[in-house]
């Protein structure tokens, strides 16, 4: 056995990520042991005895395009193990399904998320981004996470789903608990996360009651009135779909916004290129996704034995796909650790690929383009004003707090006296709200 240059890290322990994603470790793994057995020492009962770390781009891609062999349903898609009711419940979420069931579920809403459909929302998303920057523009300092990064994903996912304004804050607070399940600040225990998930799922019931009476042009309605194998979703399936949309649409885009701004603050020469030429922003968004994907890992379970790079993966084994490692693969990306907003390669895995490719990819990209265009044109000199606090997690690359300061700028329009509620009716023709309640004018 050849000498290894590295010491094993147990990646089931979120503290392995305390100093940020361990890129040096993964560089060594890609070079010396790309399909690496990770013995679990941390909370064995919760995490299982071990798993394979999948570190190379081609391997992550191959497994992603082979859902029958590398199953999302068999053990779910988290690093930790689920049992009994928890596992059964998790399989009611689309993300934990395999074909053919996965195909039928996704089809209920996929047509709402195509690039062409999202493009219709672009103007409204840009307007929301403008209002968010208005809300901080004159202050000169803020917490970038809560005051900026968290705002647009929350507003847009709740609008596209059809959550009434008055319920949005509560849902936002709850959805924070769902991803930060390893961070003691966001939740005290796994049970708290489970309770928050249950509460979000139950809210799905309230939503389905609303759209049962009143079909709308939103996702809540599409899920309610759509059919799988000729049948409507049962309440559990409906509520879990809603739960998944809340989680997927919230934390991830917030995290990408935060890291994108962090990277620009740390690389002012790169930011200057974007300030001078905002047409580069869409490409910069792709480099954000490559360099710092918000989702670090997803799990699959083998349904049969498989030989890979001299290792025998057994039926029932757990594999963890490490997206940040795939996105730094030297075989695919030249000088992979260099952050370059003008980099031309589009094929990163920051949004996954294949069967479970991020359903909200176009939606997220539209939000990121909008918020960064607003920020870079109006507050281009943003700089850190205090330490960044990171989420404790081996799943989401989250940032909890990022104080910033900047030269105060003008609002684009005067503050409304009811700015906090923003309960004005949707503008005529607003694609989120066409329907009996907010009939678009002719």
């Amino acid at each position, binding site marked *: 056995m050849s000498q290894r240059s590295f010491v094993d890290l147990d990646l089931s322990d979120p503290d392995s990520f305390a100093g940020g994603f361990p890129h040096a470790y993964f560089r060594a793994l890609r070079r010396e042991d790309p399909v690496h057995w990770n013995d679990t020492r941390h909370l064995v009962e919760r995490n299982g005895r071990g798993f394979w770390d999948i570190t190379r781009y081609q391997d992550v891609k191959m497994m992603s*395009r082979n859902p029958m062999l590398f199953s999302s349903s068999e053990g779910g898609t988290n690093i930790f193990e689920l049992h009994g009711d928890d596992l059964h419940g998790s399989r009611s979420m689309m993300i934990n399904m395999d074909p053919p069931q996965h195909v039928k579920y996704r089809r209920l809403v996929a047509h709402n998320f*195509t690039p062409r459909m999202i493009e219709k929302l672009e103007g409204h998303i840009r307007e929301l981004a403008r209002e968010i920057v208005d809300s901080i523009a004159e202050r000169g300092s803020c917490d970038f996470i809560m005051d900026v990064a968290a705002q647009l994903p929350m507003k847009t996912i709740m609008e596209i789903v059809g959550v009434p304004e008055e319920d949005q804050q509560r849902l936002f607070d709850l959805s924070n608990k769902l991803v930060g399940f390893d961070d003691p600040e966001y939740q005290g225990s796994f049970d708290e996360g489970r309770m928050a998930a249950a509460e979000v799922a139950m809210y799905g019931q309230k939503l389905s009651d609303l759209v049962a009476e009143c079909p709308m042009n939103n996702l809540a309605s599409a899920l309610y009135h759509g059919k799988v194998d000729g049948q409507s979703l049962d309440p559990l399936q409906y509520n879990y779909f809603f739960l998944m949309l809340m989680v997927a649409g919230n934390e991830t885009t917030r995290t990408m916004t935060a890291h994108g701004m962090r990277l620009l603050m740390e690389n002012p020469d790169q930011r200057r290129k974007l300030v001078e030429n905002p047409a580069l922003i869409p490409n910069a968004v792709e480099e954000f996704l490559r360099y710092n994907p918000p989702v670090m890992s997803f799990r699959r379970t083998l349904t049969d034995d498989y030989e890979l790079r001299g290792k025998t993966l057994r039926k029932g084994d757990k594999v963890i796909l490490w997206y940040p490692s795939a996105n730094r693969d030297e075989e695919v990306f030249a000088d992979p650790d260099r952050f370059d907003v003008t980099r031309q390669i589009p094929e990163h895995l920051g949004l996954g690929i294949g069967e479970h490719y991020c359903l909200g990819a176009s939606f997220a990209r539209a939000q990121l383009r909008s918020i960064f265009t607003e920020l870079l044109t109006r507050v281009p000199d943003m700089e850190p004003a205090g330490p960044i606090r990171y989420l404790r997690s081996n799943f989401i690359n989250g940032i909890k707090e990022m104080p910033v300061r900047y030269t105060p700028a003008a609002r684009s329009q005067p503050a409304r006296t009811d700015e906090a509620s923003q309960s004005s009716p949707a503008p005529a023709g607003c694609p989120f709200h066409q329907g009996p309640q907010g009939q678009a004018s002719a």
Partner: protein
Amino acid sequence: MKVVVDYDLCEANAVCMRILPEVFQVDDKDSLNILIEHPPESMRGKLKEAVRLCPRQAISIEED
């Protein structure tokens, strides 16, 4: 060679259309139409790029 699309996977991302509009056309109803089912050999390079870059991995090439 023959262009094959898995319509359970295709979601009108239209990356293929950007790469090879002579073969791939996503219409305004978000349906993918294959304009040339058996493209000439000269298109193989671009076809392979479309196969590689489709985010849903919905395209494959069958050799006749």
